[in-house]
C-alpha cells in the first residue's frame, strides 16, 4: 500500500512527547504504509479539536458462516476521510495466556499489513487480538489467511465471547489448576457458540489460577473460574522465620490483616487455623517461599459478572465452590453445567439480559433449580435477611 495523505496534527503531535510509549507514533508508523492509518490521524485530530468522536453505529458485517468476530464501523466524515469511511475491526482469538512465538506474530503482522490499517490492539479488553480498521471486502481474505496460519476469529455480539485466562501454570507457582488448558479446551468445545451468536446477549468466560484473579474474572466474566484449594496452606517455618528476621512485622502486617483472623503468631511460630481460612491469598502473597496454597487444588466456578449497563454492575458469585477440573468427570460436569445454563437462559432470558441479571430476575434459588444445582451455603455471603420467603410447601398443599 502506498503512503496516505498527510494531515497536520498539532494536537496529536503533543502526544508523541513524554516517556510513555506513544500511540500516535504507532499510528504514524502505520501511516507510512497505510492511507487508512493516515486518514485515522486526520479524523482523530479533528476529534481532538472538536472534542467529539466521529464514528457511527456499526452495521452487520462479517465473514461467511460466522455471526461474530467483526465489529462494523463507519465514519460520519466519510467524505472528508474516505479511507476510513469503512473502518471495521476484526477480533482474533488469542492463544491462551497470550504467549506467542515471533514466527506467529510476524505472520499476523504480514496479513494485517496487507489487508488492513496495520494497526492492532495487543490485546482487547476481552482478550482478543484486535485488528483495527479494514473494509468489508478484505474480511474474507484476512479470514482465510488467518486460518491458514492456525488462527480463528473471536466472539462478538450475543455469543460466547473469546475466553481468556491468566498465565497460570505456565509461569506461576500459585496456579491451582491449569488455566490455559481449561481456557483452550472450553474454547474448542464451544466453537459454534463463539462464532454464531444465538444467545440473549454476550457470554464471557475467564479463568484465573488463584484468588488473586490476574484476569479480573470475577469482575468481567459471566463465567469466572478461579483456582483455590481445600486443605491446609503449605507452610515452611524456616522461611517464615527468615521473613521475620529480615524485618517483616508478621503480627502487624500479616496476622492482623487476615480477613478471618485465623492466624496466630507468637513471635516464633505461625499457626493457621485452616478451617477458618478463606483462601484469600494474602499471607501467601506476602511470604512467597514460606507459604503456598494447599495440595488439594482445584477451582471454584462463579457466575454473573458484568459492567453496569443498565441495572448496575455485578460481580460473579459462587456456583460451584470446588471442582477438580483435572479428571474427565468434573470436566464433563462443567460442560454440562454450561449447556444447562445456556438452555435455561436462552429459553427465558430477555433480549440483552446478561445471564447474571437473568438469574437474579427469576430468583437465584429458582435458577439453581432450573440448571440442576443444589443450593449450598458457599453460594451466599449470607442467607436472606428479609422475611419474604416464597414457601413452596404451603402452595402445594
Amino acid at each position, binding site marked *: 500500500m502506498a503512503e496516505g495523505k498527510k494531515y497536520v496534527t498539532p494536537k496529536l503531535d503533543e502526544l508523541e512527547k513524554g516517556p510513555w510509549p506513544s500511540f500516535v507514533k504507532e499510528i504514524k508508523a502505520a501511516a507510512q504504509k497505510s492511507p487508512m492509518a493516515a486518514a485515522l490521524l486526520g479524523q482523530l485530530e479533528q476529534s481532538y479539536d472538536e472534542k467529539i468522536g466521529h464514528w457511527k453505529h456499526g452495521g452487520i458485517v462479517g465473514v461467511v458462516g460466522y455471526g461474530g468476530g467483526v465489529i462494523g464501523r463507519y465514519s460520519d466524515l466519510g467524505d472528508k476521510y474516505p479511507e476510513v469511511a469503512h473502518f471495521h475491526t476484526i477480533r482474533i482469538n488469542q492463544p491462551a495466556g497470550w504467549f506467542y512465538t515471533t514466527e506467529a506474530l510476524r505472520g499476523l503482522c504480514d496479513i494485517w499489513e496487507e489487508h488492513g490499517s496495520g494497526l492492532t490492539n495487543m490485546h482487547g479488553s476481552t482478550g482478543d487480538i484486535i485488528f483495527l480498521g479494514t473494509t468489508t471486502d478484505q474480511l474474507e481474505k484476512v479470514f482465510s489467511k488467518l486460518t491458514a496460519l492456525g488462527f480463528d476469529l473471536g466472539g462478538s455480539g450475543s455469543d460466547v465471547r473469546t475466553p481468556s485466562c491468566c498465565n497460570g501454570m505456565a509461569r506461576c507457582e500459585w496456579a491451582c489448576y491449569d488455566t490455559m488448558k481449561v481456557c483452550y479446551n472450553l474454547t474448542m468445545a464451544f466453537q459454534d457458540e463463539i462464532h454464531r451468536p444465538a444467545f440473549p446477549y454476550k457470554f464471557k468466560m475467564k479463568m484465573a489460577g488463584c484468588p488473586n484473579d490476574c484476569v479480573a474474572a470475577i469482575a468481567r466474566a459471566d463465567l469466572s473460574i478461579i483456582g483455590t484449594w481445600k486443605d491446609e496452606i503449605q507452610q515452611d517455618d524456616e522461611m517464615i522465620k527468615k521473613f521475620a528476621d529480615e524485618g517483616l512485622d508478621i503480627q502487624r502486617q500479616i496476622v492482623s490483616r487476615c480477613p478471618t483472623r485465623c492466624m496466630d503468631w507468637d513471635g516464633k511460630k505461625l499457626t493457621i487455623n485452616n478451617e477458618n481460612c478463606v483462601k484469600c491469598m494474602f499471607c501467601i502473597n506476602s511470604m512467597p517461599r514460606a507459604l503456598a496454597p494447599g495440595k488439594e487444588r482445584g477451582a471454584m466456578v462463579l457466575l454473573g459478572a458484568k459492567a453496569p449497563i443498565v441495572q448496575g454492575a455485578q460481580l460473579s458469585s459462587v456456583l460451584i465452590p470446588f471442582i477438580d477440573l483435572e479428571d474427565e468427570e468434573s470436566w464433563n460436569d462443567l460442560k454440562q453445567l454450561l449447556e444447562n445454563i445456556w438452555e435455561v437462559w436462552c429459553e427465558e432470558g430477555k433480549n440483552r439480559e446478561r445471564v447474571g441479571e437473568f438469574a437474579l430476575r427469576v430468583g437465584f434459588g429458582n435458577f439453581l433449580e432450573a440448571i440442576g444445582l443444589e443450593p449450598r451455603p458457599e453460594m*451466599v455471603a449470607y442467607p436472606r435477611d428479609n422475611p419474604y420467603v416464597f414457601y413452596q410447601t404451603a402452595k402445594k398443599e
Partner: protein
Amino acid sequence: MERRTDIGPPHYTKFLPPVIQKNYGKWKYHEGVRPGVMVHVAESGDKLYTIRAASPRLLSVQKIRQYCDLADKYCDGYLRFTSRNNVEFLTTKEENIEPLIAELEAMGHPVGGVGRAISNIVHTQGWIHCHSAATDASGIVKSVMDDLIDYFTGKKEVPGKLRIALACCLNMCGAVHCSDIAILGIHRRPPKVMPNLAQMCEIPNVVAACPTAAIRPAKVDGKDTVEIIEEQCMYCANCFSVCPALPMADAELDGVSIWVGGKVSNARSQPMFSKLAVPYLPNNPPRWPEVGQTVRKIVEIWVEHAEPDERLGEMIQRMGWPRFFRLAGIQFSKEHIDDYRYAALSLKRTAQVHQA
C-alpha cells in the same frame, strides 16, 4: 377538675434515686459484682449497685406491687426497667444485695442477664393481644428462657452478649430484624379473600398494598373483589394490615422461623440484620419444643466457638456460613437464598470461600 392534656410524662428527675441525682453524668466505671449484679462507681467514690431480675414483661398489677414492696424495703423506693424489659433494683447498700436476691428468687424472678450473659427475650403480643400474630409470643419466650435459664443466671458461662428476640408476625415489632437469634412467627398461606371485601376495604388500596403485585382486582358473581395470584405471594401480610377482609392465619401452616447473626451495637462490627437459619418450625403449643431445641443448639454452638465478646453473627462470619449450617445440622435450601430487593448483594461475590 379541668381536663389536662398534653402534659407529657413525669419529669425523670423525680424518679431518680438521690445517689443518681448527685452523680448524674459523673460515673467513672462499672464492674460486675456477681451474676446479675453490677456496681457503678462515681467520680465522687459513690457506689450504686444494680440487681437485675428476670421479668416476663407481661405483669399483673399484683406483681408490680410486689416489686414495689421489695424496692421500698431495699432500695429506698426506687427501681427501673431495662430496654429488654428486665426489672432493676438500685441500691447503695452492698449488704442489701443478698437478701434482695433471695426474695426475688423466692418470688420466681431469677437474677441475671448482666455482662456476659443471655438476657431477657424482647418480644411482642402474640395471641394475647394482636390480630396479626402467626404464633404466640409469651409461650415461646417462657419455654425458651426456661431452657436457657443457666445462661441467664450465670450458672453456665457464655462468651459475651447474645440477644434473642421474638416477633409474632412479619411486622417485627421489636428488634427481631437485628438480633443474634430471632424467632419470627410466619404465615405460609396466601390471604383468603372474604366475600365482604369490597364493603370493608377500598380495592385500589388493597391492590397497591402488595409489594409483589400478587393482588389484582376481580369480579366474582358480578361483585367487585380481588383475586390473589398465589405463586406471587410471599406472605408478608401487608394486604391484611391494610384490609381485614384478607385473613392470613392458618392453624396448620402458620409457624415459626429462626434467624441468626443480627446485632445493633457498633462495637467491633457494624449493626447487622438477622439472617434466615430455619425457614419453618411448626406451632406446637404450649412449649414449642422444636423452637427450643433449635435455639439451644445455636446457643451451644456459640458458647463453644465464639471468642470473648464475639457476637453470634461475628462468629459465623469468621467460621463461615457453611460450617455454621453443618454444626447446627440445618439443611441449606432454596429458601435461604435471598430473592428480594438486595438479593444480588447477598450472593458470594468473592473467591473468599470457607472450603469444607
